[in-house]
């Protein structure tokens, strides 16, 4: 089309040149000859171009396209582009500048059945293909990871096979209590008076092939002596197209226990983790290498059953086969033994259900378990049970996701059989019944603004034989205010009051702490689950 117009223009120009030069009064034979040659060469060019156009039209026709429409002058309200319609109505009803001349979606794979009726084809008054206006269908970005499967995932306008993002989470803070290790037990909590690099997370995500997708997070943090620690927090693959609502997952991943354990620190609603996460599941939460099978039940509401099995060894399986610091755990010299059988792995079942209470209110609740062995004796077991509840209301006229109210509560009970340690060196065997709860309400009262309150309670069984720092009963209240300038940054001010009166570990004085937390996200960060 363009070529045709171009050749027409060219011909016009040639004529103009010829005419423009002819008025010269008495042209010499030389001049006439040179003009003749010029005209001849121009004519040849035009012919060559016409042939090219013809060849292209034929090629297009072979591709099964309808004949190219001839441009008709725009009538009525002028449109920014020519209206390709023979009988153009008063107001244009077609517009090639926005609708590519082929509305044909991706070729339908395996649709061998009845072809679409002829009328559908005929109704397409535009030619069915035209690469000059249709973006190649494969350049249209899919809606994201997990859906893309074989297609590259877009980072901006470029195309790439994975999404990459970098998230930085920092806090500046002060507390009346100096011992942050004991006050803030989770590994990504603020760790000193002054500034803490809580979590710098590098995330990779994408489709592996038509059968799997994969996700990985590498975490960098600075300890209080500014030593950089690197954690392979997660690196897993999972199936995308198993039948019957099944999904298999394998690799290193956060255990599907409870709610807060499955959330990355940068997505926490507070500057620090609930006490039960750091104390009952461990300073690093519960995660590890293993496999998982989940099943979405064919019910009218959301119901998912998950069973994961993980090694359950080391500091990321803290209450299980964990040799502890310098070989001591809860005062016992640990056995640090190899796996003897399936009972030494950690088995983690979880059932979660969700209902909509109304058009704007949703609840999600789950029950979880984690069962395995621990290293404090020859045959000592750990059982953990959890229940979690999440409620959210969001306005039907929400802007940027605001206003909303979220209520999240979680209860964890841990039964820990503490044996007599390696070679029965500890005086007694005992069983600890530890439990705790937290409950938090977040109110997004205005676009970008969230206010929150949280209560924490932790009860630990007394042991007459150990004054382990990790076995303190605790309670705490927190309040915070967060401003999200956009979904890619946040600034949070938080106040904590720890009730420490009556505990022997902190000298019996309550502690007050203030944190200013800030976060940035660069790149294509994966959307979060509900």
């Amino acid at each position, binding site marked *: 089309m363009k070529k045709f117009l171009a050749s027409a223009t060219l011909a016009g120009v040639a004529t103009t040149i010829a005419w423009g030069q002819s008025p010269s009064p008495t042209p010499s034979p030389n001049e006439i000859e040179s003009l003749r040659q010029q005209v001849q060469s121009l004519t040849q060019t035009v012919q060559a171009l016409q042939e090219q156009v013809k060849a292209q039209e034929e090629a297009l026709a072979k591709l099964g396209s309808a004949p190219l429409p001839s441009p008709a002058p725009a009538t009525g309200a002028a449109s920014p582009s020519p209206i390709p319609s023979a009988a153009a109505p008063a107001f244009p009803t077609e517009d090639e500048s926005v609708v590519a001349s082929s509305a044909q*979606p991706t070729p339908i794979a395996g649709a061998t059945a009845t072809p679409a009726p002829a009328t559908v084809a005929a109704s397409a008054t535009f030619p069915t293909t035209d690469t000059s206006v249709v973006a190649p269908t494969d350049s249209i970005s899919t809606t994201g990871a997990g859906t893309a499967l074989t297609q590259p995932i877009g980072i901006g306008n470029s195309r790439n096979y994975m999404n990459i993002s970098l998230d930085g989470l920092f806090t500046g803070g002060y507390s009346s209590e100096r011992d942050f290790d004991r006050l803030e037990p989770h590994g990504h909590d603020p760790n000193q008076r002054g500034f803490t690099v809580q979590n710098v997370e590098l995330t990779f995500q994408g489709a592996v092939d038509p059968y799997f997708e994969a996700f990985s997070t590498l975490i960098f943090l600075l300890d209080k002596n500014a030593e950089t620690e690197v954690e392979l927090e997660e690196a897993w693959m999972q199936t995308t197209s198993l039948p019957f609502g099944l999904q298999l997952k394998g690799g290193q991943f956060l255990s599907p226990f409870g709610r807060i354990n499955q959330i990355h620190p940068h997505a926490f609603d507070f500057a620090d983790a609930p006490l039960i996460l750091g104390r009952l599941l461990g300073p690093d939460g519960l995660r590890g290498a293993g496999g998982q099978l989940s099943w979405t039940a064919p019910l009218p509401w959301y119901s998912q059953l998950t069973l994961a099995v993980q090694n359950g060894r080391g500091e990321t399986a803290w209450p299980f086969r964990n040799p502890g610091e310098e070989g001591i755990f809860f005062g016992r010299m640990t056995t640090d033994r190899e796996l003897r059988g399936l009972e030494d792995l950690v088995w983690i079942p979880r059932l979660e259900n969700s209902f909509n209470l109304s058009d704007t209110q949703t609840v999600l609740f789950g029950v979880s378990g984690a069962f395995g062995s621990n290293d404090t004796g020859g045959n000592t077991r750990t059982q953990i049970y959890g229940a979690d509840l999440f409620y959210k209301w969001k306005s039907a006229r929400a802007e940027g996701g605001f206003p909303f109210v979220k209520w999240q509560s979680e209860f964890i009970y841990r039964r820990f059989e503490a044996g007599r340690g390696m070679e029965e060196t500890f005086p007694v065997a005992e069983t600890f019944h530890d439990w705790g709860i937290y409950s938090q309400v977040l109110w997004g009262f205005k676009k970008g603004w969230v206010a929150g309150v949280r209560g924490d309670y932790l009860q630990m069984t007394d042991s007459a034989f150990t004054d382990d720092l990790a076995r303190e009963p605790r309670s705490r209240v927190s309040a915070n205010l967060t401003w999200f300038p956009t979904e890619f940054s946040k600034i949070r001010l938080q106040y904590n009051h720890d009730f420490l009166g009556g505990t022997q570990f902190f000298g019996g004085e309550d502690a007050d702490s203030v944190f200013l937390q800030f976060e940035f996200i660069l790149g294509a960060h994966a959307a979060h689950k509900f």
Partner: protein
Amino acid sequence: MKKHFLVFPAFLAALIASAEAKLNVVATLPDFGAVAREIGGDKVAVTVMAKPTEDSHFVDARPSFVVQLRTADVLIDGGAELELGWLPPLLQNARNPKIEVGKPGRVQAAQGIRLMGAPTTLTRAAGDVHALGNPHFMIDPIIAKAVALHIAQAFSAVDPANAAFYDANYKKFEATINAKLQEWGATLLPFKGQPIAAYHESWVYLAHRFGFRIDIFLEPKPGIPPSPSHLARVIEKMKAAQVKAILVEPYHNRKIAEKVAASTGARVVDLAQFPGALPETDTYVKLIDALVSRIAAAMR
């Protein structure tokens, strides 16, 4: 309580029966849903995820959507990153091969559409930018026709027995839009080339179609709340250009628009992107009818 247990299996049975009879169609946004209803008629059951009145960039990935997606025969989404913040985790959990990209059951509406306003330089310093271009394209009736055809073709591919039915409905929709375009074009012709202000940059396709100039925005950058200094500049510009209307959507801060209107003499016009957000706009054509008449009333 006991009653509930009796009602429940019956409900379940009814659900399964209805699922067998009709094509299960899930649309991410109400405009796709409205067009799908026109094309599918009583042969399809359409569920829509986003509410017409809410900001469609920030819909919650409620688990109930997983249930809808799990049993969907057809999924219609924009395919232009509008639903990027909430659709991917849902699809990850839905485990439904029928609605994967490239399958006949997946309609990505932006396919075949040339999106306007794709940024040449991609930086989040510019606010909420859409890398592929402005995704609010359904507001242009000509584009809506193309999407309707796309939907009709997908329905025919998934349910060949009713292909003629879907095709007839598409033809009807196309004819209605073609006729209506004459009416809308005539109504808005007197205001061609006139400037209009808007809260958010979501009307480029409408402006392009009917020849308005919508280049003054209350938001300094897309998705960034208006600041007083920016509003002062907006008021100045609006006075200079004699702007008569400020377009506001249901979830925007109307008070800000009212203040600007009071100091410029312009009128606040309540518009919406989605059928169902304004009264009596349950179909696509009725929505555009409402938009056209509201704009015309304010400009007069």
